[in-house]
């Protein structure tokens, strides 16, 4: 059998554009002729950097991240620049004669003081963001999240809606060692669940996070939330999603053998859609109750 272009063994060998389903024309034609071009599969974008996310705070977090990154880059240019200059100029093979100095108070004061100033400049915006991250007052909606080995439970407070959310069937079928399923053919492999957490766009959603067994961590990068789910603790986090869409994340604290298999999916919908979701949950509950 011929190997498909999604065969993992070949992926590293081709540049990125060959692999994201955007094959160059000639190649595409060849593959179509050969009947090898598979159906397009949903993957998250290949990324180098942190996401900007879809909340005000995730954007702030991103900005802080870029700020400190650029500060580091600037320091790196200066420090590495001086070192490399020194390595090139002050080498024995070029006939350099060693100086004998071993102290310079002025220099030492300067390179102690400058980092202090940079750190203070970094600390102020970081502290401001930190304060906002922790301000979960006056939410529009509260969801209690409970971590289990190895799934999540969501309970909407005051809405009488609750359910478990586990790894999607397609991923679960493909994940075994001898599944025989090419994981590249699975939509959102390991990042999809059977029932996503549905929340309304624009609402301040407060999360109360705990665990029923071991420590887990609820993490959705696009919402800039990562909070440990600790048994005996009720941790708070909050977000206000500005854009509707589907946002994926994973458990971020080692929680046993299936730690890698308890993803998180948050579906942000328009407020009216959210009301419809709650209503349909109630209907379903009534239907199940009457069937019993």
């Amino acid at each position, binding site marked *: 059998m011929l190997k498909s272009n999604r065969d*993992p063994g070949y*992926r*590293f060998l081709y540049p990125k554009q060959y692999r994201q389903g955007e094959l160059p024309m000639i190649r595409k034609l060849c593959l179509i002729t050969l009947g090898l071009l598979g159906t397009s599969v949903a*993957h998250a974008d290949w*990324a*180098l*950097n*942190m996401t900007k996310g879809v909340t005000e705070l995730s954007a*702030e977090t991103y900005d802080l*991240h870029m700020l*400190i990154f650029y*500060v*580091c880059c600037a320091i*790196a240019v200066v*420090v*590495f620049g001086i*070192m490399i200059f*020194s390595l090139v100029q*002050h*080498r024995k093979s070029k006939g350099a004669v060693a*100086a*004998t100095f*071993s102290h*310079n108070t002025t220099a*030492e004061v300067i390179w*102690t003081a400058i*980092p202090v100033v940079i*750190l203070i400049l*970094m*600390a102020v915006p*970081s502290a401001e*963001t*930190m304060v906002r991250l922790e301000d979960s007052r006056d939410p529009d909606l509260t969801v209690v999240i409970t971590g289990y080995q190895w799934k999540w439970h969501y309970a909407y407070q005051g809405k009488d809606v609750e359910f478990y959310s586990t790894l999607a069937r397609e991923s679960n079928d*493909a*994940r075994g*060692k001898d*599944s025989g399923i090419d*994981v590249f053919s699975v939509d959102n*492999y*390991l990042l999809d669940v059977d029932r996503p957490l549905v929340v309304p766009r624009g609402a301040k959603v407060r999360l109360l*996070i705990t665990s029923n067994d*071991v*420590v887990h*961590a609820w*993490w959705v990068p696009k919402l*800039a939330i990562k*909070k*440990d789910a*600790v*048994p*005996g*603790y009720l941790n708070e986090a909050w977000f206000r999603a500005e854009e509707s869409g589907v946002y994926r994340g*994973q458990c*971020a604290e*080692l929680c*046993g*053998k299936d*730690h*890698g*298999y308890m993803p998180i999916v948050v579906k942000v919908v328009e407020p009216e859609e959210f009301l419809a979701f709650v209503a349909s949950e109630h209907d379903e509950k009534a239907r199940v109750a009457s069937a019993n």
Partner: protein
Amino acid sequence: MSSTTHSAEHHDDHGPAKGIKRWLFTTNHKDIGTLYLIFSLTMFFIGGSMALVIRSELMMPGLQFVHPEFFNQMTTMHALIMVFGAVMPAFVGLANWMIPMMIGGPDMALPRMNNWSFWILPIAFGILLSTLFMNGGAPAGGWTMYPPLVLQTGNAFPFLVFSVHLMGISSIMGAINIIVTIMNMRAPGMSLLKMPMFVWTWLITAYLLIAVMPVLAGAVTMLLTDQFFGTSFFLAAGGGDPVMFQHIFWFFGHPEVYIMILPAFGVVSEIIPTFARKPLFGHDSMVYAASSIAFLSFIVWAHHMFTVGMPLTGQLFFMFSTMLIAVPTGVKVFNWMATMWKGSMSFETPMLFSLAFLFLFTIGGFSGLMLAIAPADVQYHDTYFVVAHFHYVLVPGSVFGIMAAAYYWLPKWTGVMYDEKLGKIHFWASAIFVNLTFFPMHFLGLAGMPRRIPDYSTQFADFNMMASIGAIGFGLSQLLFVYIIIKAARGNGVKATAEVWDNPRGLEWTVPSPAPYHTFENPPTIKE
């Protein structure tokens, strides 16, 4: 700087015993140093092969080789073995070999305890490695041993606790020995501030060890009683607190980080002046910087726990204190930079490793600074960004420091020069592959890949493939290191002079190469 009145008289009865007894019963600091170093190298390869199991599995998405349970055992054991079995014993080995010679003392102050503190280690790691063959497998809850997860460990659990106890006992005894040696065995005239930087950083490290190893021992003992004696220190259902373990663990764990890097600072501070042919810049400020780092390491622990749900004020305190560490660390880097400045540099293997240390440790420092920013850490925490960060400070940091030391002092230990050409090949292979392994991990973490997962979503495939290729390359390069060491240890090479290098500073270069079994039976005179 100094001269020695090395005793010419012979003490035949003081020579090493023959055969295995020499090593079992030795109280000689050089023999014990050698034992530590060999043990560390062995553990480096055992822990390294576990890393290769991890990287092979992560080479491609989907499970190819191991099951998730075994994968978790590998990550846990890799960390425990590398931290307690490879890096720490290597530095204790270097301390044993070099500190008495550097301060002009005849041996370690407590030679019998020295023997014991080494021989506990093979027992501790024998116990730890035996768990791989037990019902339920080796510990798989991460080297951080967070409860309640660690309490789900199978038969391995008590063995894990006891092996950690033994490692702690060994470390504490080693540290006591080093402190007593430095405080009491210095040659007349060697005041504290005249001590070489390696001795200084080890003195500070030894105090850190004594301060925090008992804390770890206490934490794991509480785990043990929670598991077997009905206590609920960390069990929420019994009124205990799982987060308290994390606080206690990181109160040990953060100073532990500096325990693994400070001696490397010392090594680099010895090597750079030698090959720049210029005295170390700011010796005293280096001492103060290392002491400040050690002090700060006690008040930053909860930056490992920014997502655990601490009060805002707690988070702010730990963010600010963590950022402060950048200041003394910066001072050290700038001092090394100034040592090189206007020197007359040559680039033998120890210098190459030290320079790579300087560049790559600084990169690890930068990602450390980024991690200190608490709101950003929320996104970085427990991702491959953290894995990239601590491997940058531990592999091209601590491990390159150890390798630099090995090349620097190997001629003193063996009496012959190591193979410089092979050494350089080893360096370049290591330096290239270490970056290929760990640099892509920054991107993986930022793109959202959590650590400690055996399988991942397909968009992470490319960088994982790069990292795995790098890891295999790095692992294979280390075989060359072993070959070079064995070659030199067998006396195969150009005979080394007493000085070995071009006019190096330090008492160790005043004794012949190889260093006689007993050195400085009569203390040298420190001039200046």
